[in-house]
């Protein structure tokens, strides 16, 4: 029998590890993932522990690895993500890895720096070239004009552009200076205005935009730049202009004085740019090479470093013994795994070549061990949702195996629709069949991961929804008529109740089950399809669904109570059986079990002929409480007496529930005080240590729960919950099912029916987008939204109504045992993969 029904037996063990082989032994243990280590040095600061230097070293290596991974990612090189599981490296290999990593880091940073410098150079040269080319145009215009129109020499002043004529300026004797450069396009207008204000017409600015976008080396974004040429007279102006240029972060380049100079510079620039391009290419190639080489081993190193760090963390938890030659560790180990633990230690000792082997010793303990429940890929999802509310205490009954079926079932009661169930089941089936596909497993999308982890849950939910859909007879809001309806319309005509005229004069007519032949028997599988066509469909369905909710709810809660009995028995709390379980059960069954009985009674006892005599169960139930005698005819003889009796029992069980256990424990404690010595003898007599520990735990519990509020609040809230349960069950199972059915119907009526009513020729085309809309809304609203809503409600029902009855509310925080095998997940979580 699997340990899924109850958490496993876990014992405390002491490991004696040789100093030399400690690292290897822990590595072996980590690979197996067997045990949980206890911290033996809780008072020691993290910085004063023994292996703090090694941890610092591994963190250093992690930093370098992070840098490498980022660079590799930037260069778009694929990492070989095989399912490798390298063992943690031995200390002597660690120095190798460290050296290699540091070398790689140096190389990489050097190459990257060079590359950046080269790119900056290239940018400057390119800008200079652009500038020269464009300013050439400024000046060339005039030179062209001079050469093209020689015949207008009699009007020399009109043709010559006085400002741009270098020679005329020289004749004037003024010092014409040029400043040229590049500025960002966004700033050019402000620049121009500033220039005008400051220099007041002693400068002339011409500018033109560069066609291509140059990459800004600081931000890496392409920016548009403008080439400008400022010509000015006088030195003072020149200085002012230079200051303004600085202010606007312009890139200034020397303006050539003559055309020959310009041509020389352009040639020189061109060759330099070509050279730079080649060098840059080579640098990039080299960088890629380095990264490629690194990428082969970076992934493995990452895992190895993480494992090493974890091992040192665990070594920090151990303490040295007196002789300083041996490390002592205390672990929680499942009893069934003790042989495996021994074997691992032997393996570790052998690997490190130690002369004295390490060994393990089981020791008794008073502390409550952690809860360990082994799950496989199917059960882990359900165990997770059970644990999310609270992990059960050690050796408590585990509600998870029952949740595997009851949770999807309750979800399906709220979701029931054949069509939607099929879609959900198919989606989950796809995820299950492709669960080993790496791409599906390793995405970083949180929401997808949540769905993927719960693929088995969704599959079960889908399958059960198909079944409940058949019973509710609801498939995309339409009913299936598989067996023929049980309601016969012709019988109403043949018995003369209806005629053709009644049809014409009334828009709605109700079938009467009292007339023979109208109702021929219940539909064999679920709800009769005729109700889908009826206008008073909801009156029937609401009554049915409410009663169904009550029945299912009571049964689920009673089941939870019964499971709690197993806990009481296991922990030898016989008094709990009588003082807690029995009153709870009586309270539940006397009131709500009786309600269920009345529901079923009313279904069976009253036929259509007696329909006017059938009492309302709700009113009868309320009357039962207020003990009203004249509430109409009883359903069966002796009803009044029985009801009074049941109410009395229920009312009496409440104080027993609230006060019984505390009073009993108080009385016990008082009595025990006188019997203290006797207890001592008992202890000596007990042979197995486990019994002692159990007994001690027993006494502890009794002692502490004397005046504690825990047990009383236990009972109190149980009772309160019992009385609130009706609200819960009515509201959730019924309401969600109703909401789903109504939404489905509305979607059909508003969307598909509109498309189906259109005339055939146009309708065929019209139906295509209509169906698309119908499909999208079905998936998004009915499947996703309603599905999540029903999921949450089913979850809450399980947590609050079911689990509270099974588990003690001493929610022990200690969880399952975890070790080194988290490495790949950790790498992924830190965004390095």
């Amino acid at each position, binding site marked *: 029998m699997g340990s899924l029904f109850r958490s496993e037996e876990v014992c405390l063990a002491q490991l004696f590890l040789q100093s030399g082989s400690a690292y290897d032994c822990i590595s072996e243990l980590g690979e197996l993932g067997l045990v949980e280590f206890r911290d033996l040095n809780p008072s020691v600061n993290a910085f004063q522990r023994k292996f703090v230097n090694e941890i610092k070293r591994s963190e250093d290596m992690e930093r370098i690895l992070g840098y490498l991974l980022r660079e590799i990612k930037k260069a778009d090189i694929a990492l070989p993500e095989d399912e490798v599981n390298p063992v943690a490296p031995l200390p002597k290999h660690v120095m190798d890895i460290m050296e290699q990593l540091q070398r790689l880091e140096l190389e990489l940073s050097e190459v990257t720096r060079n590359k950046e410098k080269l790119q900056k150079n290239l940018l400057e040269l390119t800008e200079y070239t652009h500038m020269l080319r464009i300013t050439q145009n400024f000046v060339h215009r005039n030179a062209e004009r001079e050469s093209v129109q020689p015949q207008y020499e009699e009007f020399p002043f009109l043709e010559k552009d006085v400002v741009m004529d270098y020679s005329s300026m020289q004749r004037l004797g003024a010092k014409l200076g040029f400043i040229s450069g590049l500025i960002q396009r966004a700033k050019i207008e402000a620049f121009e205005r500033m220039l005008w204000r400051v220099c007041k017409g002693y400068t002339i600015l011409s500018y033109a935009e560069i066609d291509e976008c140059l990459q800004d080396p600081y931000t890496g974004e392409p920016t548009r730049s403008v080439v400008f040429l400022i010509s000015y007279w006088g030195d003072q102006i020149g200085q002012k202009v230079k200051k303004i240029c600085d202010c606007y972060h312009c890139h200034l380049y020397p303006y050539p004085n003559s055309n020959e100079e310009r041509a020389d510079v352009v040639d020189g620039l061109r060759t330099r740019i070509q050279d730079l391009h080649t060098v840059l290419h080579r640098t990039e190639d080299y960088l890629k090479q380095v990264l490629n080489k690194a990428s082969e081993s970076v992934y493995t190193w990452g895992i190895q470093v993480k494992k090493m760090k974890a091992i040192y963390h665990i070594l920090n938890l151990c303490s040295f013994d007196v002789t300083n030659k041996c490390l002592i560790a205390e672990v929680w180990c499942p009893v069934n795994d003790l042989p495996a633990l021994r074997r691992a230690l032997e393996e570790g000792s052998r690997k490190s070549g130690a002369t004295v082997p390490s060994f393990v010793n089981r020791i008794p303990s008073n502390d409550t061990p952690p809860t360990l429940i082994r799950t496989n890929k199917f059960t882990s999802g359900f165990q997770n949702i059970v644990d999310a509310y609270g992990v059960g205490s050690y050796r408590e009954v585990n509600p998870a195996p029952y949740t595997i079926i*009851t949770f999807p079932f309750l979800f399906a009661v709220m979701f029931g629709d054949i069509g939607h169930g099929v879609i959900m089941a198919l989606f989950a089936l796809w995820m299950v069949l492709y669960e080993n596909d790496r791409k599906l497993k390793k995405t970083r999308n949180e929401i997808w991961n949540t769905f993927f982890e719960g693929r088995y849950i969704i599959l079960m939910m889908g399958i059960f929804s198909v079944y409940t859909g058949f019973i509710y007879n609801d498939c995309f809001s339409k009913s299936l008529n598989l067996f023929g309806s049980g309601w016969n319309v012709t019988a109403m005509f043949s018995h003369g109740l209806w005629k053709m005229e009644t049809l014409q004069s009334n828009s*709605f007519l*109700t079938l009467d089950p009292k007339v023979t032949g109208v109702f*021929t028997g219940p539909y064999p599988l679920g709800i009769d399809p005729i109700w889908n*066509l009826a206008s*008073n469909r909801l009156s029937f369905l609401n*009554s049915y669904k409410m*009663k169904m909710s009550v029945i299912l709810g009571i049964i689920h809660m009673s089941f939870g109570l019964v499971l709690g009995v197993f806990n009481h028995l296991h922990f030898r709390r016989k008094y709990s059986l009588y003082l807690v379980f029995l009153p709870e059960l009586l309270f539940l069954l006397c009131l709500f079990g009786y309600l269920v009985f009345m529901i079923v009674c009313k*279904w069976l006892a009253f036929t*259509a002929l007696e329909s006017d005599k059938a009492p309302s169960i709700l009113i009868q139930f309320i009357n039962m409480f207020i003990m009203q005698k004249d509430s109409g005819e009883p359903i069966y003889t002796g009803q009044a007496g029985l009801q009074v009796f049941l109410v009395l029992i229920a009312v009496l069980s409440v104080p027993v529930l609230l006060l019984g256990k505390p009073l009993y424990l108080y009385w016990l404690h008082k009595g025990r005080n006188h019997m203290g010595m006797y207890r001592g003898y008992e202890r000596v007599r007990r042979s197995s240590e486990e019994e002692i520990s159990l007994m001690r735990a027993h006494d502890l519990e009794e002692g502490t729960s004397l005046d504690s509020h825990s047990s009383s609040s236990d009972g109190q809230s149980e009772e309160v919950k019992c009385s609130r349960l009706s609200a819960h069950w009515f509201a959730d199972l019924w309401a969600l099912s109703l909401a789903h059915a109504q939404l489905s119907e509305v979607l059909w009526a508003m969307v598909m029916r509109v498309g189906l009513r259109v005339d055939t020729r146009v309708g065929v085309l019209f139906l295509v987008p209509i169906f698309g809309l119908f499909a999208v809304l079905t998936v998004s609203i009915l499947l996703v939204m309603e599905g999540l809503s029903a999921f949450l409600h089913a979850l809450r029902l399980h947590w609050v109504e079911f689990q509270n009855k099974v588990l003690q509310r001493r929610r022990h925080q200690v969880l399952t045992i975890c070790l080194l095998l988290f490495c790949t997940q950790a790498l992924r979580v830190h965004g390095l993969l």
Partner: protein
Amino acid sequence: MAEHNFAIPMAVITLFWLFVGGVVPLFVPKGPNRGVIVTMLVLTAVSCYLFWLIAILAQLNPLFGPALSNDTIWYLQYHWP
């Protein structure tokens, strides 16, 4: 509209879920998961049978009938057996 005997569906479905919940668990192969699989089968049988039972008991003695529009009545008279 077909005549529906109550006994036939009752017998068939009860036997079916009895088979699923009582007989199939005997044939589950021994292994670490045997307990879980048996629990699943029994719980499925119980809950599904209960759900079906509630549905059919609720319709056994209807106290009122469906209210249909006259178009529907006309259609059903001629098209449903």
